[in-house]
């Protein structure tokens, strides 16, 4: 098997939270995180609750702002492809990386009032320049694979159950075929049948060459998807 070079590189990453209201309490969560992820790999973050797995994942997406270190991602088409630094990046750089290169599946869908489910899912693909018809077709395909009944597609997801919203969120995050995927408990609150559908979709993306970093508490999901494990240790706990 050909060894691919990494598309995501993290070096010397440190993140702490400084809470002014608590008399200036500083909570150090990540220290000296080093990791590489190559296409076709799925790196599962493991470690006890509170170790900083979500903090690391959110830092990779540029949602949290690390104090030190580097997060670099391969970004851009063809000859334009280059390493882009995300720590302290300008907003438009991070937004461009999110639009084209990095997808994030969180546990919660941030609902936009009044927008139909099919359009919520289609939006990331439209932003990449796909036609409305093409994007809607792909959205309907994903929704049907994920077991969202067709009668719900034209409704806004605000009133859906937790599991349904979760699957809408997954469909939205997978529609754009991002080269790098970050997954925060993608199967939490799903039943077995739907969980298996999600595993299949993610595995398909991995085998097609996506570089994946994820948090999977469910051991069966982790075993089905992970190619490697990375143990996150909180500096407070590590000796």
């Amino acid at each position: 098997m050909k060894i691919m070079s990494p598309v995501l590189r993290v070096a010397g990453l440190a993140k702490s939270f400084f809470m002014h209201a608590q008399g200036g309490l500083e909570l150090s969560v990540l220290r000296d995180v080093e990791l590489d992820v190559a296409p076709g790999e799925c790196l599962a973050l493991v470690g006890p609750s509170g170790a900083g797995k979500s903090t690391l994942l959110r830092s990779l997406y540029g949602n949290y702002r690390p104090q030190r270190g580097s997060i670099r991602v391969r970004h851009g088409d063809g000859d334009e492809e280059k390493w882009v630094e995300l720590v302290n990046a300008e907003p438009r750089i991070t937004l461009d990386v999110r639009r084209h290169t990095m997808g994030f599946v969180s546990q919660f869908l941030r609902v936009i009032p009044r927008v139909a489910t099919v359009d919520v899912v289609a939006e990331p693909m439209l932003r990449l320049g796909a036609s409305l018809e093409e994007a809607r077709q792909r959205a309907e395909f994903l929704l049907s694979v994920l077991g969202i009944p067709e009668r719900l597609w034209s409704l806004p997801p605000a009133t859906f159950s937790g599991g349904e919203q979760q699957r809408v969120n997954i469909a939205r995050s997978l529609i754009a075929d991002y080269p790098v995927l970050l997954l925060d408990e993608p199967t939490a609150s799903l039943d077995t049948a739907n969980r298996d559908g999600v595993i299949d979709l993610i595995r398909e993306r991995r085998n097609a060459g996506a570089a994946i970093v994820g948090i999977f508490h469910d051991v069966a999901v982790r075993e089905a998807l992970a190619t490697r494990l990375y143990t996150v240790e909180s500096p407070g706990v590590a000796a």
Partner: protein
Amino acid sequence: MTAPLLSAHGITKRFGSRIACRSVSFELWPGEVLGIVGESGSGKTTLLNCLAGRLAPDEGSVTYETVSAGTVDVHRLSEARRRLLTRTEWGFVNQDAREGLRMGVSAGANIGERLMAIGARHYGDIRQSASDWLGRVEIDLDRLDDRPTTYSGGMRQRLQIARNLVSNPRLVFMDEPTGGLDVSVQARLLDLLRGLVDRFHLSAVLVTHDLGVARLLTHRLMVMQGGSVVEDGLTDQVLDDPQHAYTQMLVASILPV
């Protein structure tokens, strides 16, 4: 995307001895929606008015990249050229729709007037554009000939948006566009604005004290306190990982629903 659309360079504005806005600098790039948040009196509306050329700053300058005339210094333009800019390439949505509309003429005339200001003369075309825009902001076409005095608050605000967008601006300034509206009316307006910004690739500077509105509509945020920008960044960074004591306090003050 080679140059910023709008740049603020060290904007300072005083009212007497009080500093309303202190050396604010930033660049707005094409397609970006920037939110300015902070409590009442933090200087956000003063900053917006300086950016939009409505108020002359005491120090600093605002530059704008025009479609055809290169970069201009907004406050050094002649009054006529600045007025032309505000009617063609810019829009301004006031919190109070009555300030942005002419209440004594019909909705259609409110929209058509902006087109006529940039040279449209054909009555049929103007009326057609007005109807198209009324539809886009979800106002029934049979209200085209009614005056905005007969409209509800939410409808007036949607009409003001149509009046601003009909001339196809690139940059829209918005001052609390959903302020003073019922929550359900707000949601509809937010959703409409979000769709229009996306569809017409608008850049925008939006002043709001509502962090929920900022979360939904903006890409970037600047947090103002006592006239100074205390924190800025991507909207989700500022709201999910606030750094400054004041931002942490603002975010912690959002009532959970």
